[in-house]
């Protein structure tokens, strides 16, 4: 997810005296995407999913948080599928957030209510992707990883003035946040890919082995 956000954010902040975003330039040229075949895969070291078509795994970057993995179908930032595998209490969805940063993405807390998790994700987009208009279009209960969870749908106007659509399906298990997040332009890409994302979400389960420690 951070990967996608940074791609969105890159153009927004390059010359804005804001720093950040600088890691984007040339990043793809020197890293290798890995093909994801339509079979079972471990993702974010914690979950197992089964895509039905080929995806591309985005190379890990230093600014990814330890608990995430990113896939894309057509390339970032066109579409991004992020897996967050067990974000711990007190941790933010982003890396390199300093205590002195004026604008901060709220830390996840294991006792967050559904609207609080939704609001955390919204702040994440507004702060890191420069989204201005951000609208919740749905928040409903949904079983995820066999647990009671939520589905959060939203639309936002990205820093590059493209109207994008997103869906997050998530749950909190053992005090940790597990999510699959999909974000793409509202026109064409979101409706085209969301059925496959739904299949991936439905296939998701927790790995049986012990969850990694903090």
């Amino acid at each position: 997810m951070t990967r996608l956000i940074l791609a969105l954010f890159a153009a927004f902040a390059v010359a804005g005296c804001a720093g950040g975003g600088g890691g984007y330039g040339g990043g793809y040229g020197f890293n290798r995407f890995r093909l994801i075949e339509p079979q079972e895969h471990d993702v974010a070291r914690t979950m197992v999913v089964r895509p039905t078509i080929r995806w591309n795994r985005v190379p890990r970057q230093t600014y990814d948080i330890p608990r995430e993995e990113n896939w894309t179908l057509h390339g970032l930032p066109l579409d991004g599928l992020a897996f967050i595998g067990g974000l711990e209490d007190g941790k933010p969805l982003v890396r390199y957030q300093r205590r002195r940063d004026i604008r901060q993405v709220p830390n996840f807390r294991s006792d967050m209510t559904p609207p609080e998790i939704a609001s955390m994700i919204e702040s994440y987009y507004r702060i890191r992707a420069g989204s201005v208009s951000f609208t919740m279009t749905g928040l409903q209960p949904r079983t995820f990883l066999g647990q009671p969870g939520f589905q959060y749908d939203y639309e936002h106007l990205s820093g590059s003035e493209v109207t994008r659509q997103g869906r997050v399906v998530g749950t909190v298990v053992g005090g940790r946040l597990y999510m699959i997040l999909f974000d793409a332009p509202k026109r064409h890409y979101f409706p085209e890919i969301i059925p496959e994302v739904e299949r991936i979400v439905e296939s998701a389960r927790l790995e049986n082995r012990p969850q990694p420690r903090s």
Partner: protein
Amino acid sequence: MDDALPLTRRMMLAGLGCACCTGLLGVGEAHARIRPRDMESLIGPGYRPTAADERGMWQEYERVEQEIAGSNLLVTDPNLVSYLKSIVSRVGGVAAQDLRIYLARVPEFNAFMAPTGFMVIFTGLLTRMRDEAQLATVIAHEAGHFLRRHHIRRWRDVRRRTDLFAIFAMGAGVGGAGAGVYLGDAVRLAQLGTILTLAAYGRELEAEADAMSVRQMAETGYDPNAAPEVWRQLIQETEASAEMRRRRPRRGYSLLASHPAPETRMADLRASAAEVRTGRESWDRGRERYLNSLGTHRKMLLDDQVKLNDPGASLFIVNNLASDGWNGLLRFYEAEAIRLRGRREDRDLSAASYAQAVTFPDAPPEAWRMHGYALIQAGRREEGKTALARYLALAPNAPDAAMVRYSIQQ
């Protein structure tokens, strides 16, 4: 579609960001205040440029205006836009009928005047203003740049001192390049950054615009004291924002960039306001008109600000607005800012603010939702469920109604 828009919010921000690097602040330097009565308009109605360099500048900005006019960042509510136009007409002096105004949805305190007579103001400005007089002072300041021909004067000054580069030729070359997304953006950023760096006028021209704005305010009946108020608010907000994160305020930030040192400037504005505030007993503040014109947009404005989780600034803004009286909306966003801040004690503090918010008749439905969840978290389940039910009653078609219903059933 965004690739076809050479001017975007990013660029405006980037350009204004670059402006903050120009280092034109000269704190403590001796200076003479420019008196409002000395500020005559340097143009007449329907002004058109004749010199070649100014015509070139106009051509470029006419293209920019077309692009801005089509940007999907614009707030286009006709009532709000016509309200802004009415203020421009009032304080725009001889150019009142020539000036255009665009409202861009960007939660920053900023405004920008183009040499051709169009102005872009950011929604973040509307978030922060307590009344119409405060907004008018910023609009009058921007109009002052136009009336005093600051762009071309600054441009010629820069040209005299340095052989910069041919920004207009450059601008003409890259607009429709349609390069890859990132290259394109970078090129366009550079282009507009250059243009807007020129918009950092420097101390003297900013002081002129200040004096001009005070004059226009007084002549049109707006309380000129609104001018020093606005700058005091901005300084205090910047300081509150920094203090919350335990860092030094960024003086080069936003509209303070390249302006005279904030304290000096405020002193000058106070003196100028006092000078023109003679011979008249009542001054127009336009608070009711302002709030009525913002209407339901005020919620959006506060939402855009508070979700940025800059609690120092957000709480300052809310408290500043509340100095005219608390209401449910302001209490709700106070609670939201505290909740997002996320300190250990903030859960209880925000719960208390949500509880206060719902005592006001104008509390937004979301206040009942958050109040309800806060009660449930505090172990007061039945009261919490009642509050959630109230939310559903007030907003039966809310996008999260299904989740709230589920929470009630738990």
